[in-house]
């Protein structure tokens, strides 16, 4: 039995088929929630962002262009942006200073993920990031999950701007090398959208 594609489900969402959106949520909800939780580190906020992402998909299904990438990749990009925005709004109220990104134990149930190829790539990358020097890995995580720029990292951590840029660049270059060593023949799965 052939599984209905993301593009077909999105088409049905465009025709106001709620069940189609629920099918997409069942397909990618865990991915979205996992990224939101990793970024926000608060389940309640992660749930809100996850719901927000799928409501956006419901309201504007035509904004995803299948020719430009996988739906899951687009959803995760939206999730990251929404989570960072939410994080910045929350930080205004809590006056949270920039802090180091530690991968806290969530205590939640591990999820079965759709889009196994891309997800497996991501989990491999996470393992590779652990091989980076701590000061490089932490800067990469702060930039990726918190959305901090060079200057924000420099100011927040009290580290010279040049040091921040050097460590970030070195970390990304090393991560790329590690990735290519782990996948000498492969191209990242994301370059072959299944839609």
């Amino acid at each position, binding site marked *: 039995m052939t599984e209905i594609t993301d593009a077909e489900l999105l088409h049905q969402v465009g025709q*106001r088929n709620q069940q189609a959106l629920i099918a997409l949520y069942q397909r990618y*909800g865990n991915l979205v929630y996992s990224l939101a939780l990793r970024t926000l580190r608060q389940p309640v906020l992660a749930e809100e962002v996850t719901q927000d992402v799928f409501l*956006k998909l*419901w309201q504007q299904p035509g904004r995803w*262009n299948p020719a430009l990438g996988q739906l899951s990749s687009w959803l995760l990009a939206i999730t990251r942006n929404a989570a*960072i925005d939410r994080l910045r709004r929350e930080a205004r109220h809590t006056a949270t200073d920039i802090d180091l990104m530690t991968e806290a134990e969530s205590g939640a149930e591990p999820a079965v993920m759709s*889009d196994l190829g891309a997800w497996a790539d991501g989990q491999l990358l*996470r393992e590779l990031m652990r091989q980076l020097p701590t000061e490089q890995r932490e800067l990469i995580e702060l930039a990726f999950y918190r959305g901090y720029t060079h200057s924000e990292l420099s100011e927040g951590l009290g580290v010279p701007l040049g040091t921040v840029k050097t460590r970030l660049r070195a970390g990304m270059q090393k991560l*790329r090398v590690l990735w290519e060593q782990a996948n000498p023949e492969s191209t990242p799965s*994301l370059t072959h959208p299944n839609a």
Partner: protein
Amino acid sequence: MNDARSPGAQFPDDNQENDIATHALGATDAGERSAVEALAAADPAAAAELAAYRRLVEIMHYSAPPVAAPPALEATLRAALEGAPPVAAAVVAPLPRPPAPQPVPRGRSWNWLWPAVAASAAVILLLFGLNLWQMGRIATLSAENATLQAQLTDRDALIAQRSAQLTALDQQIAAQAESLDAAQAQAVDLGALLAERTQVLAATIARAGETYDMTPAQPESAAFATVGWFDAGGVGILQASDFPPLAPDMTYQLWLIKDGQRTSGGLFTVSDTGSGTLIFSPPDTLDAFDGMGITPEPAGGSSAPTAPPVVTGSLHEG
């Protein structure tokens, strides 16, 4: 990723080239972003380098530890879909997107829609709740109105019942008043008749062959009785005056005494004024007895006196 050159090694001394990797990560500031984008647009090698790092960052999106979304979240999403404003798919234009996810676009948050959605949902929920409350209130008021109507109906019926009872009572009072008037008239008639009969009785006793008086037997008593004896018929007539009133279950009993033996002479009652009459026929002539006495006895009489006499009298002088 298939670039044969070492990552970053091809731009060792140039700031724009050095920022390519961190630009893909979204860490460049505004000035750095525009410089890197300009370089990528002008230099295919820089563009390829940027694309490679963007693919790496795109994979990074999948690197979060896998966690299952709470089961209730799907139900929450379904509920939110029910309240979401309709948007025609044809109106939504495709969004021109880059091949890979962009670095964090801080000025392009999607969250601007959420307050409107939340506000709309809140208003809908508020109106829905208000409508439910009003419907519940109307139902409650209807029930209360029905109860009050039923109570008014019951009260009207009770008032009608009470009015009928009052009318019946008025009629009974009027009838009793008429009866009372008639009784009073009858009493007047009876009083006159009694007075007349008393006079007749006194005249009759006066014509008797013998008369005997019976005087009070108790101190400070005004009771008095006179007995007229008609020897020809063997009949005696007793007229009592100023006797104490009796309870309804009591009567006066005349005793004829001979050799200490009491023989009942008969029973009589007295009027409210203490007057009474007894016509009696003893088993022997009256002068065969020694004396007489009258005692109060239970209704129906007694076989022998049970109470002290009211009056007593002797039937033989001396």
